[in-house]
């Protein structure tokens, strides 16, 4: 895990996290701190799944 690939991985995760957090904001109706916290957590899970899926497919 050279620094470069680590940076790339972090950038990809961050990209997915921002996109999914925005999608969460669109999905919910009322915005309050707890919703944002749960949204951030779910977006992180989604970002990890997205990266794992891409690596699984390209790796094959």
């Amino acid at each position, binding site marked *: 895990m050279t620094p470069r690939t680590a940076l790339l991985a972090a950038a990809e995760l961050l990209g997915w996290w921002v996109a999914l957090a925005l999608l969460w904001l669109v*999905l919910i109706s009322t915005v309050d701190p707890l919703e944002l916290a749960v949204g951030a957590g779910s977006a992180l*899970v*989604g970002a990890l799944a997205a990266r794992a899926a891409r690596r699984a497919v390209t790796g*094959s």
Partner: protein
Amino acid sequence: MTRRTRLWVLLTGGAGLAALLVAACLRLPHFGGDRHPYGDRAVHASLTRHTANTVSSVNFDQRAFDTLGEMTILFAAVLGCVVLLRQTRDERRARPEPAEVARPVRRYALLVLPVALLSGLYIVAHGQLSPGGGFQGGVVAATALHLLYLGADYAALERVRPVGMYEVGDALASSAYVVTGIAGLIGGTAFLANTLLPYGTFNTLSSGGTVPLLNAAIGMEVACAVVVLLARFLDQAVEIEEESGR
């Protein structure tokens, strides 16, 4: 006890049951009418506990014990599938060969997988506010994971989905549901009673006391159960073959 007499016993029993059913149906509230004795009480109870979605309140608060039964039914069904669809001695497991899928389909699968996963988590989290809940969100999240099989091949899905972890997740979520129930006992009230947590402000994520917790437990349990179930079906259909030489 010839066949004819047995038939007669069946017919009389059936006729009696039919008569009772018709009598009961005649006294049901009118279709689309405004008198709902059970509905009014359920809505009143769910509103007093600040749960916006009455169906979730019935599922996870007033009749939480029935949902415990439903959860164990799903758990037992998946357990039965795992036992039945296991690899027997005379079968061998062939490596699933990588499949070549059209680029747009693969890109679509990789794009929609996280979106569907997030939507599933959204449906589980807002179970007690808007239509949805643990069951629906869990199935959506589990189906999202299988976009990998549809968009690429089974080897890619196997790399991302360690089945053992999902079986543990299934068992953990079921026991989390039961432990939340027992916490009600320890708290001095009844099993699965919704008296532990404050009910929070209406129509927010933290409203409804233990309803969100039970929702999350059911969501995780259903998602893991569906993944384990589909894993066994996919194994049988894609990987496991009979020994050709007799």
